[in-house]
Structures are given as structure tokens and as C-alpha cells.
């Protein structure tokens, strides 16, 4: 039955992507296309006093300049602007709604012109006068004003008391700066206007989310707006929520009653959501044998003044390590910035960084091998709930990655391993993420000639969803993969939530199983009246679809071609659309795990850091496609290098403005920064998490990597840098 699942199948859309046949949101056209360019605020807080678009309007080819004063109507209540992923608290930002300025770089006008160059030029001529108010973007200065959130998880025992009497104590603060997603594809929307209806090509991780949102904002009927996003050039969480360009594109189209395309610039990509900056204080108390008896994890993260975005950085420790007592707290600092948002492994990339760096420091204090400490504190249950894991192969991750890395040859003494001018450091960390599933609906149409169409409104954000959907359908329906057509990224298709949280692969694959089973049942039902059929009286669970036939599992010679069944029934196709829900089993915790080992070489005099080796062993249930899975995990690991060593959004607090809003000055790793990267998938059979035993791989790749690298840097240099990114100057500074 599994010809394709589990193999290293190449991307079914690979050819379209490399030949340019795959079209992205900003590449769609229309005969009546107008082009937009956005004017952004240059202050962080205040009001617009006056907008003078006179000069802009004089430019040949400019059609109109939309502002909050002359735009078409938009909804006037928060509910309309709350998309599926909106935080519970606060008022979602409304683009071009009124004259108030909430952050620097906020859109204040949309220039629409006959071509992009004209729109861009005219946008530079729009003059905006502001009534400026004092702003605050400096996280550190506002720490004292942080607002406490309800306890992120139930405390266990009295952690403060236990910590006070622990044999060995570690207490430190860890800092993560604001980071941006930097997907290759810019946010873009093309709103195609036809007879009062709109088809909106949008860069998004959730077409139906955007569709519902647009209908709310513009008080449109569901059939008036269709949202399409067949391909996406990277989202990493930035595309979970509708971004402002889609609102402006639709606003423009409704104002002009013609099609509008709007593509943000790279600079504007830094004026939307980001990974929140945060300070995390971790206290770990242990007995001399390494057993933890107290964990305190407090996080303070930033958000905007208007919306309270936050995730749970602090609760991962309760899943990872056994400790009798634990306490968690989360505070929020509101700043005059756009609202923070999800970014690759939100809360875990950051929370586990702090926890795993702290565990390394504890190991040093204990004079214990960091891996041994993890094993000592290994937890077989989720301590928040007391539930066991549906599966947890973290021990295997540790042992396989340690073996591949050669961890046993590590000299524990910092600065002890050398090679020429380089200090060599070896560090390790643990990774964890949730194995989530979401309700999803899949439609399958199987034709008599053995072709199948699989349809679902999910997205392929570049991870390989097209491919795994084709693999699952081909296996379940018993047809060659080339006979499977996958349709996704269209709001009119059967419902799917946004693609995020690593939940789509598990959800959609199981969804395909459900619907394929319905197809099989339907075939059996139709076959029932066939004369002399070997399928007579056979139960559905006892047959499979393979090689274009319905076959009895136990007696493979009892087989009937699907084409014969359809001919007999007088149909040329069978279509089924089924919803799949994943019941909460209530008895198990569902998580993916990883172990990461890193080698760095640090030039002793100059501080130049090279990550020369990374090994990650991942346990994530059934791996659907070894090739796309490996790419996904590698991408996360490389991002971990960036988080550890390079990434930082720089804000000048005098202007409340991001100053390195381009990928020349916002550094992500380049090829030279990436050396050996090894991914190991640990065998993990999980019959509980979902029928196919899939746990998802979207996020786990990055989790733990920054800590493993930071720990390796400490091992190399004896210098503990707790504020990311670890740039070379921090290795020589005093504090």
C-alpha cells in the first residue's frame, strides 16, 4: 500500500517552480490592471494632519491616491478585522482606516497608477504632515511597565522555596532580539475585478482565512470574493494573518472598479509582524546528582499598543524535564510597533533556546556532561497534565545524534579543544514541538481511467504539501503519482485552516485517508450488483485499492478493475468529499522531539565564529517524504545558525524606526556560513497520535539549534553570551 509514502519523492511541483510556470501572487495579470504603491508613515506615533497628494496626482498615469479620507467604506468594528489567527485581546490593525499613527512604517496612502514605475514615483511625491506624539519602542525602558498575563501553565509545588535550598542553582537572563521572517517572496496581492466580483491572488498561508477576513472588512458576500494562493515563496508564519497589502489591493479594486496589483517592497516587509523581542529569566535548581527540583521560567515579550500577541515560551520545560516544582510567568510590554506575530516555531525557538542554554550552564555548574544531565532529567510524561506521550523517542534522538557527532570524544573543559588559531567547541541541546492536527476536508475525484484529483483549500508554503498530498492519494487510491492532480490554495475548495504549527501534513494526509476510504466504500457499494463479483459480501476494511483495481487483502487474486466497476455503474467518475476531525484522546501528550549537536570553531584572537558541524536527530512519527522532510529540517537548522549568530532587527528608538530594513544589513546565514548539516530521522511508530502516525516537521528543525550553537561557543571560548545574536564583539566585551 505504501509505494510513495516514506520515500524520497521529488517535488511534484518542482519542474513548474524552476521553469517559472508556477505563478505567485504578484505575477498574475489582468487586461485592466492598475498598480499600487504604498506610502508609509515616517513617525511612530501621532496623527495625520494633512495629506497632500497634489504633486502625485499631476504625474502622468496616476489614477488616484487613496487615503483614510477618500477610501471606499470599510467595516467599523473589531470583529470584522479579527482573522482566524488574531490574538484574543486587542483591536486588530485596520489599514488606511483613520488618521491615527500606531507605528513607524504604517501605510498612510495608496497610489494607484497605470504602471508600477509611475505609482512608485508618485508615492515619493505624496506629502504627509503629522501631529507627532512621543513614542516608545525601547523594550528595556518599558520593562518596568510590563503587564502580567494569566499564568501560562499551572505551577507545581513551591518553586521559589525549592530553588532556595537546591544544592546547585543557576539563575540567568536570556535575550532574543526582534527578528523578521524574510521570506524570498514579497507580500503581494493581485485583485482581479470581474463584474463586481473579485478573485484575489494573495501571498498567504490560509486562503479561506483571508477570504473570510476580506468579506468581513468589506462587508461582501462570500461569493463576491475568492482568494487564491497556489504557490507561496516562503511564509514562516508571516503569512498566517492577512497582511495589509491584501486589504489595500481590494480597497483599490473597489475604488477603481478594476483590477489592482500591489507588491510590497523589501523595506516594507519589515513594517509588518516580527518575532517579538524578549527577556527570559530561568532559574534551575538541582540536587548534586543533577536531578532538577526547581524550574522557574519567566518571559517578558513585546507587542504593539493595539494587539496583545504572545505565545507560551515558558511551558516547554514542563514537557522536557522532570522537576518536582515549577513556576511560569509571562509579561507583555506594549510598544509603538506593529503587533508581533508567529515566526518559525513561535515560543519554542525562543523559549527552548533559553531553557537549553540554562541547562548547559547548570551542567557546567554540576560538572556533569550536558547530555547526561538531560538524560537524568528525562520526563516520560507531560508534567503539566501528568499524561504520558503518545510516543517519545527522544532517548533514541540523543543516542543516534551523539553517535553520529562523536560526542563521546568531547573534552568537557572549555577552551581545551584547539586547532591552529581556532578554539573548538561542542555543544548540544534538545528540541521539542507539538504534534498538532486540525479539522480538514478533502475532496477526491477518481475517474474511470485511473486519474485522481485531490482538492483541499490548504496551502503549500514551500514545504512540499503538493507532493505529500499526491503521495498519500496515490498510495491510498492505488494509482501512479503522475495520475494524481493536487488542487490547493483556493478558497472555494473544501475547508482547511491556515497552514502553520506543523499541522498540515498530518491533517491533510489523514484527511486523504478518510476520503479515499469513502471512495473505496463507494466502489464496493457500486460493485455489489456486479454479477459474479469476487467482492460480493466483502467488508470495506478488507479491500485495498491498488494498480487500478479493488483487491481483497487476504486473497489478492480476488480483484476487480475500478474501470469495470464504474462501467457497470454507468459512471465515469466517483467524487467524495469528507471532513476529518481529530478527537482529543485526552490520555496522551503529542509532541515531536529532536537532539541537536553543534561544533563551532572560533578564531581566538578575532572572535570569528564558524558553525562547522550540525547534527540533528528528529523523532516525528512517520516521515512522509524523506527528501522534503530533510529539506524542511535542514532549513530550520540553518535558520538556527542565523538566530544564534546573525539575526537582529535594529530599531533606532529616537525615531521608533527599523534601520536595517533590507537583506544586505539584516543578516541571515549565507552559503559560507553553512558547513556540514546532517539530519537523522529516528524511527518512531505512533499508533495513537493519528491513524497514519504523522507528527509534523514544520517547526522542529529550528528548535534547540540556537542553544546548541550558543553552548558550543561557550565550550570553545569559556565565554557565555546570553543575548542573541552572538556577534564577534560580544566574545571580547567585559561583561
Amino acid at each position, binding site marked *: 500500500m505504501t509505494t510513495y509514502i516514506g520515500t524520497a519523492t521529488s517535488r511534484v511541483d518542482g519542474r513548474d517552480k524552476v521553469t517559472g510556470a508556477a505563478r505567485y501572487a504578484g505575477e498574475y495579470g489582468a487586461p485592466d490592471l492598475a498598480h499600487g504603491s504604498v506610502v508609509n508613515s*515616517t513617525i511612530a506615533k501621532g496623527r495625520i494632519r494633512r495629506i497632500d497628494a497634489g504633486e502625485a496626482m499631476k*504625474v502622468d498615469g496616476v489614477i488616484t491616491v487613496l487615503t483614510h479620507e477618500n477610501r471606499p467604506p470599510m467595516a467599523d468594528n473589531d470583529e470584522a478585522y479579527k482573522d482566524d489567527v488574531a490574538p484574543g485581546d486587542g483591536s486588530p490593525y485596520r489599514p488606511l482606516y483613520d488618521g491615527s499613527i500606531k507605528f*513607524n512604517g504604517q501605510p498612510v496612502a495608496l497610489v494607484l497608477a497605470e504602471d508600477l*514605475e*509611475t505609482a*512608485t*514615483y508618485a508615492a*515619493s511625491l505624496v506629502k504627509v504632515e503629522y501631529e507627532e506624539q512621543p513614542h516608545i519602542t525601547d523594550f528595556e525602558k518599558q520593562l518596568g511597565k510590563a503587564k502580567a498575563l494569566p499564568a501560562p501553565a499551572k505551577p507545581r509545588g513551591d518553586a521559589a522555596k525549592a530553588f532556595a535550598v537546591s544544592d546547585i542553582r543557576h539563575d540567568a537572563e536570556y535575550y532574543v532580539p526582534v527578528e523578521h521572517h524574510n521570506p524570498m517572496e514579497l507580500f503581494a496581492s493581485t485583485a482581479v475585478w470581474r463584474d463586481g466580483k473579485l478573485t484575489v491572488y494573495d501571498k498567504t498561508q490560509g486562503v479561506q482565512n483571508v477570504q473570510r477576513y476580506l468579506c468581513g472588512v468589506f462587508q461582501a458576500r462570500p461569493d463576491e470574493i475568492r482568494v487564491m494562493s497556489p504557490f507561496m515563496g516562503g511564509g514562516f508564519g508571516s503569512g498566517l494573518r492577512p497582511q495589509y497589502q491584501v486589504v489595500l489591493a481590494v480597497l483599490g479594486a473597489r475604488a477603481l472598479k478594476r483590477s489592482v496589483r500591489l507588491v510590497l*517592497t523589501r*523595506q516594507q516587509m519589515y513594517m509588518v509582524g516580527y518575532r517579538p523581542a524578549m527577556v527570559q529569566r530561568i532559574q534551575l535548581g538541582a540536587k548534586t546528582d543533577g536531578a532538577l527540583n526547581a524550574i522557574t521560567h519567566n518571559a517578558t515579550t513585546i507587542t504593539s499598543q493595539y494587539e496583545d500577541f504572545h505565545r507560551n515560551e515558558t511551558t516547554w520545560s514542563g514537557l522536557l524535564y522532570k522537576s518536582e516544582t515549577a513556576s511560569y510567568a509571562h509579561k507583555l510590554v506594549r510598544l509603538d510597533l506593529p503587533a508581533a506575530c508567529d515566526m518559525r516555531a513561535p515560543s519554542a525557538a525562543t523559549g527552548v533556546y533559553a531553557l537549553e542554554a540554562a541547562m548547559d550552564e547548570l551542567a557546567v555548574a554540576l560538572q556533569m556532561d550536558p547530555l547526561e544531565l538531560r538524560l537524568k532529567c528525562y520526563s516520560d510524561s507531560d508534567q503539566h497534565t501528568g499524561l504520558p506521550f503518545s510516543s517519545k523517542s527522544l532517548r533514541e534522538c540523543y543516542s543516534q545524534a551523539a553517535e553520529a557527532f562523536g560526542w563521546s570524544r568531547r573534552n568537557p573543559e572549555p577552551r581545551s579543544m584547539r586547532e591552529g*588559531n*581556532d578554539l573548538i567547541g561542542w555543544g548540544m541541546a534538545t528540541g521539542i514541538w507539538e504534534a498538532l492536527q486540525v479539522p480538514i476536508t478533502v475532496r477526491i475525484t477518481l475517474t474511470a481511467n485511473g486519474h485522481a484529483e485531490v482538492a483541499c483549500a490548504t496551502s503549500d508554503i514551500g514545504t512540499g504539501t503538493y507532493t505529500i498530498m499526491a503521495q498519500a492519494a496515490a498510495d491510498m487510491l492505488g494509482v501512479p503519482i503522475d495520475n494524481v492532480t493536487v488542487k490547493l490554495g483556493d478558497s472555494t475548495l473544501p475547508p482547511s485552516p491556515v497552514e502553520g504549527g506543523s499541522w498540515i501534513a498530518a491533517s491533510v494526509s489523514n484527511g486523504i485517508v478518510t476520503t479515499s476510504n469513502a471512495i473505496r466504500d463507494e466502489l464496493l457499494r457500486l460493485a455489489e450488483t456486479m454479477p459474479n463479483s469476487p467482492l460480493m459480501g466483502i467488508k470495506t476494511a478488507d479491500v485495498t485499492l491498488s494498480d487500478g483495481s479493488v483487491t481483497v487483502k487476504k486473497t489478492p487474486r480476488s480483484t476487480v478493475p475500478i474501470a469495470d466497476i464504474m462501467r457497470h455503474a454507468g459512471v465515469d467518475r466517483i467524487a467524495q468529499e469528507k471532513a476529518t476531525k481529530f478527537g482529543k484522546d485526552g490520555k496522551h501528550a503529542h509532541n515531536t522531539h529532536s537532539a541537536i549537536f553543534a561544533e563551532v*570553531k572560533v*578564531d581566538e*584572537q*578575532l*572572535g*570569528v565564529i*564558524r558553525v562547522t558541524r550540525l547534527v540533528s536527530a528528529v523523532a516525528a512519527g512517520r516521515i512522509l517524504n524523506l527528501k522534503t522532510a530533510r529539506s524542511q529540517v535542514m532549513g530550520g537548522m540553518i535558520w538556527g545558525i542565523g538566530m544564534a*549568530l*546573525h539575526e537582529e532587527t*535594529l530599531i*533606532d528608538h*529616537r*525615531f521608533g*524606526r527599523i*534601520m*536595517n*530594513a*533590507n537583506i*544586505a*544589513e539584516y*543578516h541571515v*546565514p*549565507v*552559503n*559560507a*556560513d553553512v558547513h556540514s548539516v546532517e539530519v537523522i530521522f529516528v524511527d518512531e511508530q505512533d499508533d495513537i497520535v493519528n491513524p497514519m502516525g504523522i507528527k509534523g516537521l514544520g517547526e522542529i528543525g529550528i528548535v534547540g539549534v540556537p542553544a546548541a550553537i550558543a553552548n558550543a561557543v561557550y565550550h570553545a571560548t569559556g565565554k557565555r553570551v546570553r543575548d542573541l545574536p552572538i*556577534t*564577534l*564583539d560580544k566574545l*571580547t*566585551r567585559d561583561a
Partner: protein
Amino acid sequence: MNNFQYSRATDVADALSQIASDASAKFIAGGTNLVDLMKYDVEHPSRLIDISHLPLTKIEETTAGGLRIGALVPNSDLAWHPLVTERYPLLSSALLAGASAQLRNMASTGGNLLQRTRCLYFYDVATPCNKREPGSGCPAKEGINRINAILGTSDACIATHPSDMCVALAALDAEVHVAGPNGERTIALVDFHRLPGDTPQRDTNLDPKEIITAIELPPQGFSKHYTYLKIRDRLSYAFALVSVAAALRMDNGTTRDARLALGGVAHKPWRNPEAEAALNGQAANTDTFARAADIVLHEAKGFGRNTFKIDLARRTIIRALTQAMNGTPQSQSSKKIA
């Protein structure tokens, strides 16, 4: 980006007459810097005079035994030209330390000289900047100045010149050949770029009506004892925090002719004759190298976020001179520091 006219120059004379007739016209060569600056609304040329088709693409030996490099030789062609890799490997190495292969394919020799600072404020028209708008102020001084200068700064501006190539050219005593309305002239590379003083809007001593036609290198190429060591925030494709071009003529452990130029630290490639003099005639070793570094950095001044550069520059100078002495130049493909 503004609307602009575009015309192509047919020869140097044509280029000069076109630029003379339009005060806000600009030459465009590879466009890798100018087009970016136009996109950011920093530059608003009324006309782009395309000089990329001018016949200034030759690399020829001069009668004096040096090399003449046409202003339109792409950075990648220059880096890989046999005469350069053999006789001026320092120049080749500095070029390969810069930008990316794609950019080097487009970037021209003349354009590289005239690329503008990467100061974050210079690029953002929503902020003040004396270089962009004289008199508006310099937010970098108390702001995000990690990449800004520590030497030769002024009250008005602390920007750096970001070129790698120019650092090597400065060390090699290159000359810049230019043509203008009053004929041709030659400017020493070390005098080509200016310090910011109170006119930070002027990067160089080239007149806007002039065109760069070539770079000339003297015969001495220092092909035995040289290095270009660039320290940056990632291992490739980033501008220098500090870079050092070091070139030595050695005689039995004694330095005879030392060249030391720094990038990423000043408004121009930084050479210090005193530091070089302090090396000449001395035993080549860490002590003499450290002394030279101290002389170079004697007047260095940090502005907070970039203060670390002073110590980093010191260490980088010592390492670079050591690499040069040992004949183990920094490899630009393996990012391991030799």
C-alpha cells in the same frame, strides 16, 4: 524612484559632453549601487548616461611595467585576470572578498570606487543625514553605528567607504585616471576619497563633470607577502567591520617595504605612513606588528556601538601582517582564517 531620461554614451568625449549639459545627470555603469540608491530615493538623477558600452574594458601592461585597468572592467574579470592573480594577488583577493559573484559580474572598476557609504541613516530618507541632506544632522553618531567609522571622523559624519577593492588599491599605490572638460588628470588613490570634514556630501575629489577612465598600478605587486583579511558579521556577503590589506617586501626576516591599508574604519581607505615607516627596517614579528597597529589606531575614536572596532582592528592588523609575513594569505573561498 523618480522618472528619468536615459541615454547611452558612444565614447568618452560623448559621455563628457552629455554630463556637461545636464547638472543632475549621472553616469551609470553596472548600476549595482546607483539603482539601489534611486530605489531608496536617495539619488534622483534627471538622466542616466549609460557608460557601460564605452571601450574601457581592457587590462593592459604599461610601459613602466605596471598595469592599466579600464574603468569598465567588471570586478569579476579583474579578480580572475591572470596578470592580476599572478602579480597583484592582493587586489584579486580584496575583490573576491566583496559582495557576491553575481554583483561582481555587474560591478565595474570605476563604479566600485564611487560606491557610496552603507550607513543605515544615509539609506533611509525618513531620517536626517548630513551626507544626504547637508545640515540635517548625523543620527549615526549616537545611533546604530556598528558599521561606522573610528578614524578620520568629523562632527558632521562618521560614515565609512565600504569598498574592499579600494583598500587593496590604496595599499598598492594605485592611481586613478580621469577625463574631464579640461582634459585628463591623474589622482592618487589615497587622495581620491575625502574625509568627511564639514562637507560629508562629497565622497571624493572627482568633479561631477569628470569620468574615471582607468586605474593604474605601479610595477610592485607584493605577490609573495600579502593578504586581504576582512572581518564581518557573517562569513561572506557582508560589508567589512574591519578589513586589512597588508603587503610586505621581506628580506631575511626584516620588513623592507610595508603597506598597510584598512577598510571599514574610515571615510576612505585608511593608510598611515608612520605605521608603515615603523615597520620598515624592523624585524617582522608580533611586537613590531602590534606597534604599527597602535600607531594606526592611536587616534581612533569609537561611538558606542562601533567602539569594539578599535580593538578588532588592532587584532586584525596583527593577524594580517602575520599572514603576509608567513606567505599564507587569507583564502576568500575557505572562510577559515589562516
